[in-house]
C-alpha cells in the first residue's frame, strides 16, 4: 500500500506484555494507567532521528487491518522494528486472518509509520 506522504516507512510490529500494561490492567481497562501503558510505540532511536520523530511525538501507524495514532518513545528495538504493548491500540493494527490455526499474526506484521 502506498502513502501519498513520501515520509511513510515500513516497520515490523512486535506486540507483547509489559509490567506497566499488567499494572494498568488491574486498575481497569478504562483507567488512565491502562491507556497510557498500552497506547505507546517503542522505536529505535536512529529510526526516530531519521524520520524526524521527537520523543513522545504522536505518530500514525497503519496496517492492512486498520490504523491508530499513538506517541513514540525510544526503546531497545533494532532498526526497522517497533514494539507496542498488548492492548486495544495494537489490536487496531492486527488483522483477523489466522491461516487456519486460530491464531492471528500478533507478531511480525508489516506496519507503515508516518509522523504527523
Amino acid at each position, binding site marked *: 500500500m502506498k502513502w501519498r506522504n513520501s515520509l511513510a516507512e515500513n516497520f515490523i510490529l*512486535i506486540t507483547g506484555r509489559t509490567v506497566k500494561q*499488567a499494572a494498568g490492567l488491574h486498575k481497569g481497562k478504562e483507567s488512565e494507567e491502562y491507556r497510557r501503558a498500552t497506547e505507546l510505540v517503542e522505536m529505535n532511536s536512529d529510526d526516530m532521528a531519521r524520520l524526524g520523530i521527537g520523543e513522545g511525538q504522536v505518530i500514525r501507524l497503519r496496517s492492512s487491518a486498520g490504523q491508530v495514532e499513538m506517541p513514540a518513545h525510544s526503546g531497545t528495538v533494532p532498526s526497522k522494528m517497533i514494539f507496542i504493548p498488548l492492548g486495544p491500540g495494537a489490536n487496531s493494527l492486527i488483522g483477523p486472518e489466522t491461516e487456519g490455526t486460530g491464531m492471528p499474526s500478533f*507478531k511480525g506484521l508489516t506496519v507503515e509509520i508516518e509522523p504527523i
Partner: protein
Amino acid sequence: MKTIVENATCTFCGCLCDDIFVEVEDNRIVRVRRVCANGRGVFIDYDPRPRRPIVAGREVEWEEAVSEAARILVQADSPLIYGLSSSASEAQMKAVELADLIGAIIDTTSSVCHGPTSLAVQAVGEVSCSLGEVRQRADFLVFWGCNPAASHLRHFERYSLRPKGRYIPNGRMDRHMVVVDVRPTASAKMADHFIQISPGGDFEVLATLRALIQGKEIEPKSVSGVPLIQLQELVQRMKACHFGVFFMGMGLTMSGAREYNVRELFTLVTELNQYTRFFVIPMRGHGNVAGADQVLTWQSGYPFAVSFARGYPQYSPGEFSAVDGLVREEVDAALILASDPMAHFPRAAGYQLKRIPTIVIDPMMNLTAESARVFFPTGSYGVDAVGTCYRMDNVPIRLRKVIDSRRPTDEAILGQIIEAIKRC
C-alpha cells in the same frame, strides 16, 4: 480484626506462585508480600464489594440476569463460549457442561496464545518436566521468544535461574542462560548470551540447529541475522550440558509459521535427548489457561476450538476458534468467561462481539463487559473464591481464599444458567 493468610496463590500468570503472604484486616487486604509487580494488583486492586449484575446497561437482580443469559443462549443458533483461562477448573467444567448442553462452540484463550503449541504437541510430541526439575537439575536454560522479566516476574527467582537445587548447589552460578529474541529485552540483559534473530527467522534458525546437532555442514555464514558461529557454539554448549531446558512463548506461537515454529523446536528438543537430557516448558500466560486445556481435554478429548453443535465434540482450530468464528460471522451469541477478548483480539473480531448478544462473567468490568448485554460481577479465584488451577507445568494447585466472598462465584452463575436452560 487482623488475619494472616500464608501460602496463598497468585493467579496472574502461569507461575501460580503459591507462597504469597497476605495480611487481611476486617475482610480487606491491607498487605501482600512475595508477590511480583504483575501479581500485586490481583490482590490489592481487587474490589470485592457486592455488585449487582447488569442487563442492557441497568442494574438488575441476579435472577433476571440469569434468565436473560439463558434466553440469549437458548435462542442462539450458534453460540460461542470463550475464555476460561482466568478461572478455576470447577467453573471451567461448568462452561464445558453448558457448551455440551446447548451445542455451542467452546474455545479458550489458548487459541490466541499457546494453541499453536498444542498443535505442535499433537504432531510431534513434547519432552517436558515439572518446574521443580528445573530447580533441582537444570544447568542450561534457553528462553526463546519469551520475556519473563515482563511477563513472569518471579520465574527466574523461584524456578529457573536463581534457585539452588539438589544438583545445582550454587544456583545462578551453576547455570548458563541464553535468550533468543528479535529485540534485546530485559530478560536478555540477564542472560549469559543473547541471540538476536530477524523477525520471522525462528524456523530457519531452529532447522539450522537441528542440522548442526546431527553434524551436518551449513554453508551460509549467517542464518536469519544470526552468525553461524553463534549457532555452532550454542550447539556445543547444549550437547555438553547435563540438563537443558527451553522455555518458549509467543515469539514462536504468534510469528509467521506459528505451530511449525513450535514443531521445529519440539523436534529439536526430542533429538537433543540422543545426546543429553533436554526439555521444553511452554510459558503459559494466564493463571489457569493450562487448566482450561486440561478440563476441555478430559471432558471432550480436545484442548481448544471445540464444537458441540452436532451433539458430540468436534475439533477444528481455524474453524471453531473464536477469532475465526467471530470474523466469519458464524457465531450469533457469546458467553465470555473470565477473559477480555475486546482488549486482546484483533479489532475486526472484537468488533463482532458488539454486534451479537454477549454475556460476560468476570470479577471486574472490562472492555468486553462494557458493551455486553449481560454482565455478571463474580468473585475472583484465589482472592475470595477457592478452586483448583494448573501451573504452566501442569502441576495442580489448590487456591485458598484470603477474604470472605460477597459475590457469587462464576461456577455458581454458570450452574444457575444451566439450570435455567434445562427448565426452558
